[in-house]
């Protein structure tokens, strides 16, 4: 297997000088599904945005598909896909109009975009809505369009930031199955989420970050053996220092009285 993402001593700070990432080191192999988890504000989205070439101001070395993100961002962007955390779409467009726009940004031909858009929208159950403006869509429907827009150009690496948000149970099962089949097809998936049991089930390797640093990196089995815990939830709680939930819950109930 070849290394498709390599990060060395990655650091980044907010405008006010506060460090978000404090020296991340990570390697990802082709065809892996990486579960990238951490508490709010740990630096997950910032890492992903740097890997996508969206944040140019960072220190350290970042290579994606063997190329330096600082100098070859344009080449890298052609081969990666991104599904952001919040449904960032041009809502006054219809799904087909939006996907056509996105497809053209990847220099795809209109005929191919049209065919793919219609097929994919049909497969996720939106065939009756292809000509409706998206400002009338539910959160789950927008999330489906967002997912397709991140995959339509058939990227080598897919970055997913909370991709299951707002989806119904059947759609969640479908997305999980799509991810599994993408892996079989040799695609690399960088998956960031708060839903631990999904991360636990689909990831080949789980990377936990806290306060801008990697605090665990290994397969679920390895992490389980290290932490002597049964579930990813427990491991996560132990590692991120928030293992006081039981006492907090008791206090909560007392306050209700």
């Amino acid at each position, binding site marked *: 297997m070849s290394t498709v993402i390599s990060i060395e001593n990655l650091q980044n700070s*907010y*405008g*006010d000088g506060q460090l978000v990432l404090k020296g991340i080191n990570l390697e990802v192999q082709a065809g892996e599904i990486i579960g990238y988890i951490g508490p709010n504000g740990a630096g997950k989205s910032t890492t992903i945005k740097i890997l*996508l*070439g*969206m*944040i140019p101001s960072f220190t350290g070395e970042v290579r994606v598909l063997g190329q330096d993100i600082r100098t070859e961002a*344009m*080449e890298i*962007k*052609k081969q*990666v896909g*991104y599904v*952001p955390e*919040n449904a*960032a*779409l*041009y809502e*006054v*467009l219809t799904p087909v*109009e939006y996907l056509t*726009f*996105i497809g*053209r*940004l*990847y*220099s795809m031909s209109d005929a191919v975009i049209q065919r793919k858009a219609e097929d994919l929208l049909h497969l996720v159950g939106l065939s009756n809505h292809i000509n409706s*403006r998206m400002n009338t869509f539910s959160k789950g429907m927008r999330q489906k369009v967002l997912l397709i827009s991140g995959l339509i150009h058939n990227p080598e690496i897919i970055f997913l930031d909370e991709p299951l948000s707002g989806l119904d149970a059947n759609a969640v099962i479908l997305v999980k199955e799509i991810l599994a089949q993408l892996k079989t097809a040799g695609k690399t998936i960088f998956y960031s989420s708060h839903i631990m049991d999904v991360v636990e089930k689909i990831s080949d390797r789980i990377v936990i970050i806290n306060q801008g640093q990697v605090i665990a990196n290994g397969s679920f089995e390895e992490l389980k053996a290290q932490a002597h815990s049964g579930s990813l939830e427990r491991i996560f709680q132990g590692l991120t220092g928030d293992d006081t939930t039981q006492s907090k819950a008791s206090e909560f109930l007392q306050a209700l009285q």
Partner: protein
Amino acid sequence: MTSSILWLLDRLQGLFRMLGVDYAMMRNIVEVKFTMDNRRNHASLGKRYQEKESSQRLLMVYGINALLGGLIGSFLFIAPSLLLALTIVLGYVIAWVALTLITDYSELLLDTTDNLILLPRPVSDRTVWMARLVHLTGYITLLTLSIILLPTVFVGIKYGWVIVPVFVLLSLQAVLIAVFLTTLLYMLVVRFSSQERVKDIISYIQIAMSIFFTAGYQIMPRMIRFGEVMEAEHSIRTWYYAVPSAWLAGLVDMFYQRQYDTPHLILSALAILVPPALIYVNSKYLAPSFTKKLAGLASTGSEEDKVVVEKSRRGLLPWLAEAVTNSPAERATFELSWNITGRDRRFKMRTYPAMGSIVPLLFVIIGPVLNGRQSFDQIREGALYLVGIYVLQVVAGTFYANTYQSDDYKASWVYDAAPVADPSELILGNFKAAILKFYTPFYLVSSVLLLSIWGWHIIDDLLAGYLFALFVTSLEAWVKNSNWKVPFSQEPKVKAEAGRTTLMLIMIMLVLPVCGLIHWGATKVPGGGLFMVLLYGVLLWSTLKSYRRLRWSQFE
């Protein structure tokens, strides 16, 4: 229209390629931007048009601008000199382009969605930047052309077609000044505020613009009478040097009159040199730091945007709520309504422009004085203040009706889930908050204005007018809500069914003048004002009492 713009761009693609732009990508982005413009809401389109699912909103925007431009252009026939007429017309172009940029583009400018969509894609920064520039330039150029369309024709008719090209070129100079002013404003606002505050400030500008519109239709025809005042304006006064549109007008005037004296030369020099200098300052100093600040806002986000409501800032609200409400549910609705109406930006956008109605009212009342047709003493003898008092009710009605709408309308499930036995508590709490928070201060200001003209003897009439507004507003709720609704439970874009609205309008059209006439009659009788206070007091009391008979089964 988008296709014509794209057709033009296609002719220029060689130029874009020479500049290192990926033309196909740029075209794609520009196409989507114009498509979205066509479907976006524009501040200058009335609410009626905004609610329509139209695909040609841009054309409507340009059409309205052309009409307004024609109205302003009429100064070319009224004003005694070309200089003064063009100062007004070009001043309007500058003000209008700047306002449109602030209102219609602020949402796009401050919207980080665009970055989230475009930045991860394989499009160079140069291409994205050029696409944004082309889009904005196209929009402003079309806007300017639509505004100056009729004034250009008027210039040609009145002053000859030779100076038309100069006029058109100078209108584009005016746009440069407008772009500079807008950037300057943004810089100042962004420099001192967080993103949320910026949005607030922009919505206040939008509100001011709507008021300007509402009032403008009333003021313009009355201004025309001021033509007599303007007759003396032939020479270049000192204030001309301080007004950018006067510089531009001076240049046209110099060509037209072939007067190459010092004042004309100074104005012309300012017209030619200042706009490019402003744009240089803009691109060199203002724009980069502005972009940087915006990027900062986008990345830091939430911390800076946090709006803390300190306990001390709640001030009199808990006390007031306790004093005017009779039950916990009524108090809860009162406080909710008070807070939402004060904080919800969109609510303010829908409601506050109604305050513009006070401006035409002013003109109805003191307009004759301004025109010199009547003196204040003559006005005092009449009872025009009654017109004011009764027309103001419309403002109370608008505000109250809007409290039934909210962008967070889905949150009204709490009323269904909560164990509130008597729904009238919710209606009354909301009614009281709407009246005390908005209408009372508004009415007080209006009353001070009327008192300052007519004196204390109209105080009983003002009190009666206040009670009348409350009475009709509470009555409106009965007429409108044949299916009762709880506050903040309706989606804003859903229009009330036509029949019911018409019924309400007919009621107001009948009730306002009839009650006004009765009141006018009462003022002729000693103690008539007090009688009206009593009458409206009793009527209000009985409507509010009738609320108590409301049952949940009457609600939607």
